[in-house]
């Protein structure tokens, strides 16, 4: 007969800092041994019996995630994976005595006594509970798209902030469930930050773009790319970052959206060299930082899913990189050396355009002739530009030095304004 519970060390608190409503039992045998709850702020918690004394019952209450619950109910992971992966790395240990006294102690995830961790792997048993249908319908587990680890927009709404998510997985031991080698994690975070930073500089460090009619200093621009660690999830290994400073430009677009959408449009290009050539907005520094980020993926043979959600616009972006995709893109980036594009404004008229080929010939009032391509943002409007009509155009020019080829100049029309109007 057991009268004493194991001693635990942690922080004692008088009450749980959240209110829970029971959803259903994950395991009922004689009585509920593992039960799912939902908090008033919509987080999912599990109450799992750890130990029983003669006059006391001890359980662990911890935050979990519905994808992990689904994986468990679907028989994909054993219960020990659920128990040992509290979403926020904390357990609330609740000791309920028969006289009604309740003691609550917060402990860190790693501090859970090994005696409480099952030594054998046990998967779900359909006889574990009659509440599975209630759990599945209440948590909408049947609506989870298993190809997506989670819904980034839902996460952003809960966090009440734009969120950037880096979701790592690997077939080697670099990434495990809720674990990741710290040096690779550090390299990946730093390289993604650097990519955001140089993208911010390439977007904002231009005389044309003002915020509130006041140009930002480089220091202020770099600050726009800084994010803070928000939380992590145990689903492979997933980290959430939120911006710490956001500025809104005159079009109402946030700096985070500008920076991240630019990064994701670069991601979209993949290893398409010809498509990359059409985007002079990506500076040499941006391409270099992108290559460094991909090198972390490739060198460590990991898979990284990158997500960004704009909480206000309810927009999200997604892209994914593995070793082979990263290597292909790195190769394309390495083969082509670009100089930074020079953006200049000219007045003149189109001497020729082609909507099909997306090309132009523009003759300035000084007689200078430019031949090149329309930027991707203008390709559906080419038919609107009549020839020999006066326009003011922004043309981006950069030197392309392909390996073993003669250096050539690329001209891309970025914007077209009708002078007469």
């Amino acid at each position, binding site marked *: 007969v057991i009268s004493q519970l194991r001693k635990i060390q942690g922080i004692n608190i008088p009450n749980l800092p959240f209110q829970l409503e029971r959803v259903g039992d994950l395991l009922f045998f004689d009585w509920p041994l593992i039960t799912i709850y939902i908090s008033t702020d919509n987080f999912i918690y599990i109450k799992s019996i*750890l130990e029983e004394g003669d006059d006391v*019952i001890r359980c662990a209450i911890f935050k979990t995630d519905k994808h992990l619950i689904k994986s468990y109910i679907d028989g994909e992971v054993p219960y020990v994976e659920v128990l040992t992966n509290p979403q926020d790395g904390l357990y609330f240990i609740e000791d309920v005595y028969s006289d009604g006294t309740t003691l609550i102690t917060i402990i860190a995830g790693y501090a859970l006594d090994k005696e409480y961790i099952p030594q054998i792997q*046990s998967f779900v048993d359909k006889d574990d509970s009659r509440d599975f249908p209630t759990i599945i319908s209440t948590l909408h587990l049947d609506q989870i798209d298993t190809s997506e680890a989670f819904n980034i927009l839902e996460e952003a709404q809960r966090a009440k902030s734009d969120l950037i998510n880096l979701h790592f997985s690997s077939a080697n031991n670099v990434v495990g469930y809720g674990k990741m080698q710290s040096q690779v994690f550090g390299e990946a975070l730093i390289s993604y930050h650097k990519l955001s930073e140089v993208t911010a500089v390439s977007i904002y460090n231009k005389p044309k773009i003002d915020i509130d009619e006041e140009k930002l200093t480089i220091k202020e621009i770099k600050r726009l790319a800084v994010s803070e660690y928000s939380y992590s999830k145990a689903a492979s290994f997933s980290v959430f970052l939120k911006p710490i400073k956001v500025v809104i430009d005159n079009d109402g677009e946030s700096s985070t959206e500008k920076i991240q959408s630019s990064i994701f449009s670069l991601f979209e290009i993949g290893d398409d060299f010809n498509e990359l050539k059409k985007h002079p907005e990506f500076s040499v520094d941006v391409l270099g930082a992108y290559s460094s980020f991909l090198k972390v993926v490739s060198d460590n043979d990991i898979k990284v899913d990158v997500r960004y959600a704009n909480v206000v616009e309810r927009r999200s972006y997604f892209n994914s990189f593995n070793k082979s995709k990263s290597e292909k893109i790195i190769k394309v980036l390495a083969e082509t050396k670009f100089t930074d594009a020079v953006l200049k404004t000219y007045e003149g008229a189109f001497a020729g355009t082609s909507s099909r080929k997306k090309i132009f010939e523009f003759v300035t009032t000084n007689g200078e002739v430019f031949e090149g391509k329309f930027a991707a943002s203008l390709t559906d409007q080419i038919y609107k530009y009549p020839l020999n009509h006066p326009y003011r155009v922004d043309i981006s020019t950069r030197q392309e030095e392909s390996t073993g080829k003669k250096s050539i100049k690329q001209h891309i029309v970025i914007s077209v304004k009708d002078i007469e109007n």
Partner: protein
Amino acid sequence: VTISFKYKEELDKLDCECPPLTKYKTVIRDCFRWVYEDINHTNNFLPVKIINSNRTSPDCEGYCSLYTLSFFKTLANAEDRYRSLAGKYAKFPERYGNSIAQGRLFERDGLANDPSENGHFELHEFENVSFNGRFTIIKKIKL
């Protein structure tokens, strides 16, 4: 002859029919139960609610189950379920023992439900029933 349940006082306090008589019948059945290595351990044939009064259940049907004894139809059923539960509740062996005992239920012992697919069933004992000396340990479970 009037028969009464062993924990009648507690069962009568419940708002639901406990046990539900459409599901629970008298049986004659060979069966298996988890017990402590010492077959004379005081908790070997006590319902979970009697062992620890703190144990509770959110609904009346579950609460009713707290006063039953759990049995299995076959040795394999008993062992499989034990391993399944020990992999979800590490201290399970401390509270349910580490051995499997075999015995036979008779009509005079109480009302039992039909075994589930995994062979588990429950018994609401009649008053004055005792299992002392009626079950024999046949296997010690090693995890």
